[in-house]
């Protein structure tokens, strides 16, 4: 069973608590939008959930197994992680970049085993990268690169995807496209946790919302129930109006809240 559980997570840096007593359980099929002000600890939490950063206290488990007890390659096969603003460091072909997602499934030497080549072709097609297949990955546009990176992350069919601001810097069409794809992934039973700042898109596409404030979970639950003007006020110090329901939800920012109160 796919499930991501955190208990008593704490990360401290130089006496300051970046994360403090974070605990939750997420089941497969959920698309969790992680929101919070800059510096609230979103990226740190995602790194800890991905098993890239060992917490100072607490534990994360995936499918019932603590990450600390899991083999690195096994973990790499079961969850994918995308950092903020990923970029290609060499002008390799886009298809080679996507194929890197298969690394944890491959032996230490040699090319792609025969069975993987069709999967690569399928992934290239599914993420609308056919025209860019042989293009140097360093020359892709922001939207193309975002799709290529998501294709890279998902080609190994992980159970969970952890993505840090996958729609930051994307134009509205590409942002919508990405959100729909993440939503579809969750609908297939996978678990998606993604940090983001666009509350309207989060409200429309994410099944769940988790809000962080100063390293603590301020709220976590189904999006429709969790995303309220009170929460936005408490987490961002912003007065907001939430109108509409489901796919028609709109979040309007009315102004900065009076911090003195």
């Amino acid at each position: 069973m796919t499930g991501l559980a955190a208990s008593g997570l704490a990360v401290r840096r130089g006496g300051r608590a970046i994360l403090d007593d974070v605990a939750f359980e997420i089941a497969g099929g959920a698309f969790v939008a992680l929101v919070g002000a800059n510096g609230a600890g979103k990226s740190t939490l995602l790194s800890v959930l991905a098993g890239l950063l060992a917490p100072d206290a607490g534990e994360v488990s995936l499918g019932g197994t603590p990450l600390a007890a899991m083999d690195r390659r096994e973990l790499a096969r079961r969850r994918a992680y995308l950092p903020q603003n990923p970029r290609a460091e060499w002008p390799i072909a886009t298809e080679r970049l996507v194929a890197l997602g298969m690394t944890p499934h491959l032996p230490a030497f040699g090319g792609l085993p025969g069975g993987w080549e069709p999967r690569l072709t399928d992934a290239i097609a599914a993420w609308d990268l056919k025209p860019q297949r042989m293009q140097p990955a360093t020359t892709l546009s922001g939207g193309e690169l975002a799709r290529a990176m998501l294709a890279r992350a998902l080609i190994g069919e992980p159970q969970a995807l952890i993505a840090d601001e996958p729609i930051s810097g994307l134009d509205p069409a590409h942002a919508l496209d990405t959100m729909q794809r993440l939503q579809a992934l969750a609908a297939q039973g996978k678990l998606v946790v993604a940090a983001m700042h666009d509350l309207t898109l989060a409200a429309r596409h994410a099944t769940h919302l988790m809000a962080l404030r100063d390293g603590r979970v301020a709220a976590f639950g189904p999006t429709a129930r969790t995303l309220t003007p009170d929460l936005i006020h408490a987490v961002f110090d912003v007065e907001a109006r939430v109108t509409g329901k489901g796919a028609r939800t709109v979040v309007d920012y009315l102004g900065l809240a009076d911090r003195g109160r």
Partner: protein
Amino acid sequence: MKPVRALPAYVLPALAAAVLLAVAVASLFLGRVSLSPAELIAGLGSPQGSLAGLVVTELRLPRAVLAILVGAALGLSGAALQGLLRNPLADPGLLGVSNGAALGAVIAIYFGLQHAFPLSTPLLGLAGAMGAGALTFAFGRGGTLTLILAGAAVSSLMSAFLAMALNFAPSPYAAYEMSVWMLGSLSERSWDHIALAAPFILAGLAILATLGRVVDALALGEAQAESLGFRLDRVRVLALVGVGLAVGAATSVVGSVSFIGLAAPHLVRPFVGYQPSRTLLPSALLGAALLLLADIGTRVIPTNTELRLGVITALLGAPFFFWLVVRLRKVAP
């Protein structure tokens, strides 16, 4: 947009191996004493009997073997480091081991040990390389940038000691010997030198050859490479040990040779679609061929004083840098 082109997987290694073989065979024929193919083959058949036999088995063959080992060490180390650091200017000397090796060898010359025991120069060179590598490791843990900075610090410390050794050289002749040694040469190297350096070089090459998958994954940056199951802290140690063994042993036997480790990966990269793992083997083969060519140059270019290997590679290296700049200006926006 221009598509990425890459030769099929086995073409470039095969091509580079063929070039290396051709250059290696040519290197047996070329030198101060000219030998006909018939004399050469007869000499190989009966090493003790003839002058040709002695020239081939005791002079040219060890020279070619050593050139191949050292060139491969430099080429593969350069490719592995450039892949690991995602920096096309990374060079095998970056981690301080070459300067460490040079310092060890120069200390041997300083005390005149090589007159009593010829292998003392490479032996102390090896010790120097290992010491420098250990120092880089001690200070360089924690990240890629830390490793580079530690390497630069160790490198400059070693150069400071080198300058000091030259400054306080016991005699002008010793100072001359030191500076000439540092220019690098494959002449007067025997099978003993190979026996000493080969195990270290081969061990280093074997370690670096395992880094293919991780240098590929690093094309996605460090965070994603870690997320794909690699422990980068361990990978950095492996790379340091591999480069330390290979380049440390190579430098301690032939002296400082620039350019090969930096250039070989650049020459290979466009033909393999810029895939870091696929630059490794061809870079080793091409590095070996380049060093052999440079060594042939030291033999056939007629000069009164021996033209040193490091001088040729440096002379070739400078125009290569200009070419790199011009190409980069075309590629970069």
